């Protein structure tokens, strides 16, 4: 019994408590968020697998008559989204130094980059010469990018919520900033999903 009790300490509540310093109320929210994002990742994996299966069993891919995809705008969009993740991390670094102003600056910049990404995607949809129901490729294209776009929108709302809350003095500090860490984790997740999406939809 002693040996098993010792091994628990590694993954038990105690470790979390020490890491976060929340007194006798260990905070499991970030862990729970990670578990939830795992489930989210499985939806995307399922959709990616469906797309790759369609692709692999088709004789010609994309199906005949699909217009050539433009790469420049989505490429720029990809760079914008990836860099926003690094920008956002500076915000997290700032709050760890109790620098609320700095956090607000970096998070504001992230929100702007996210909005540019969404606007770029909207512009791409608008200028595309193919529609949702044209063929199997165009359908998967719109459903996958659209589903991802919804997640970007949700991530953007999380960032704006953090910015709104940070106007209350003392809401976030170097010891208590779950909202900042959670929204950053979510944003990185959305970012990674986009990289895979970009690779299989545009490059492959």
């Amino acid at each position, binding site marked *: 019994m002693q040996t098993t009790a010792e091994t628990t300490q590694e993954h038990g*509540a105690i470790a979390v408590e020490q890491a976060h310093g929340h007194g006798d109320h260990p905070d499991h929210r970030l862990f729970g968020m990670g578990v939830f994002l795992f489930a989210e990742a499985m939806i995307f994996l399922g959709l990616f697998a469906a797309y790759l299966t369609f692709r692999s069993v088709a004789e010609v891919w994309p199906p005949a008559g699909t217009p050539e995809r433009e790469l420049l705008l989505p490429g720029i969009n990809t760079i914008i989204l990836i860099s926003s993740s690094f920008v956002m991390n500076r915000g997290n670094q700032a709050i760890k130094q109790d620098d609320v102003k700095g956090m607000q600056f970096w998070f504001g910049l992230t929100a702007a980059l996210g909005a540019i990404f969404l606007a770029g995607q909207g512009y791409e949809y608008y200028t595309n010469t193919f529609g949702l*129901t044209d063929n199997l490729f165009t359908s998967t294209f719109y459903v996958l990018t659209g589903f991802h776009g919804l997640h970007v929108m949700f991530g953007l709302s999380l960032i704006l919520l953090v910015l709104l809350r940070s106007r209350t003095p003392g809401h976030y500090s170097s010891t208590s900033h779950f909202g900042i860490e959670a929204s950053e984790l979510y944003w990185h997740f959305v970012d990674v999903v986009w990289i895979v999406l970009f690779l299989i939809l545009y490059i492959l």
Partner: protein
Amino acid sequence: MSVSTLEPTQTPQPPQPKHPERHWKDFFGFSTDHKVIAIQYFVVSFVFYLIAGAMATSIRVELATPDADFLGYENYNGVLTLHGTMMIFLWIVPAGAAFANYLIPLMIGAKDMAFPVLNGLAFWLVPPGGALLLLSLLAETPPSAGWTSYPPLSLMTGQVGQMMWILAVLLLGTSSILGGVNFVTTILKMRIKEMGLYDMPLFCWAMLATSMLILISTPVLAGALILLSFDLLAGTAFFNPTGGGDPIVYQHMFWFYSHPAVYIMILPVFGLISDILPVHARKPIFGYKAIAYSSLAIAFLGNIVWAHHMFTSGTPGWLRMFFMAATMVIAVPTGIKIFSWVATIWGGKLRLNSAMLFAIGFVSMFLVGGLSGVMVASVPFDIHVHDTYFIVAHFHYVLFGGSVFGIYAGIYHWYPKMVGRMLDETWGKVHFALTFVGFNLCFFPMHILGLQGMPRRVVQYDPAFADINRICTIGSIILAVSTLPFLFNAVYCWFWGEKALPNPWNALTLEWQTSSPPIIENFEEEPVLWSGPYDYGIDSEPEEDTRSVADLLAEVKAEM
């Protein structure tokens, strides 16, 4: 931790901490208390069990004669679809969540779940989902493509009903995922300090494996249903061959969830049984680690066998070989469990009460379903019996003989803890006898029907099958009647049953260390882990006590 208990504390230095009383209204609103939520899950899922059970009985009455003369051609498919969907998503899955909600925090000595508000939210997705499914029966064309909703059939049987079905399953799936997040976090992070992973009751291990399965597979079903609804409403052709789509991709995505779903429905019950048998056999569990690890093994293997449902869907030969072998391998961890349970009760001092009868009934009935499972895992046999009543017999032995028997065992075992009153044993035994006889009479002959070639999902059949079908229908009526003694017992004893002591079964797990029913934050003081979960019949004093009775009495007197 729970919001409902955050009442203003007026006295700064109370000599005895006063616990707020439970109010009956708590059960009818948004609660964050895991015990209230569990009871809500129990009641709601049982109501849907009765509804879906009534549907099952009407299906059997229809099939008592070869002609379509009771439900008729118009209603049969809709009733069949909703029977399957509701039994799975509104009875067995939420009943598992009910036990998990009630037992996990108590078993690990926590005050509540890790995320109480999320927990309440997850529950409150269930009633709308169920209402939506019931309402879909009233749609012009109710969902009639079976619980699998394979395209292109599901794209041809009417938009409104099918879309309501999809939305309902998405709601119930979301509820299940949110529950899974909560269970994983609670089990891994909220145990009392002394409790290591290997000191947990086996139900917690089972729920850990179940939750992992939920988190891996349910989202993929959501993905499939999102694509299906685009096909249904927006005119895309993901699964529609006429537009260049591929219905087989739906089957893959669907079974990637729905095969693990079998384990999502049976693993919690495995956990319940592992906790019930040692208590009533008064013996330690046989092979604690073997049972714990076999749950994880089943969860892993359960994820890589889905295409055995698709042997007749044009699956290439080499792929069939893989899925056949992988499926048969699942018999190993499952067999480990069965042998461990038998070894647990072997030579024990059995108390043959209702809980134990249902638990033993579970082991034997599940064994039948498991064996026919190995049979249908083999490709040649499966091609022969695919879509026949043999399959119907097989999965009812797993889901009714397995899950439902186990859920009843759990209810008889933990009812005293949840309600604070004992269930009546005589009525319990009547319930068991009727269920056992009705179940076997209803489903065992279906094996024969299937081997003789009767297809499933038909309203009208060859008169040659009529005799056996009549036996099945008689069994189903006995089965329907068998719920009455249970209902009567559960309702009557809720109010007038004999008061239950905190630990009526002399069990060792932590939930029995508090009052029955437990107070609002579970334990008066932090519970103490003074033994392993299953150390029954082990002498804590290894040395022979040589003192005489007179000496002992003298000692007792001295202490007084």
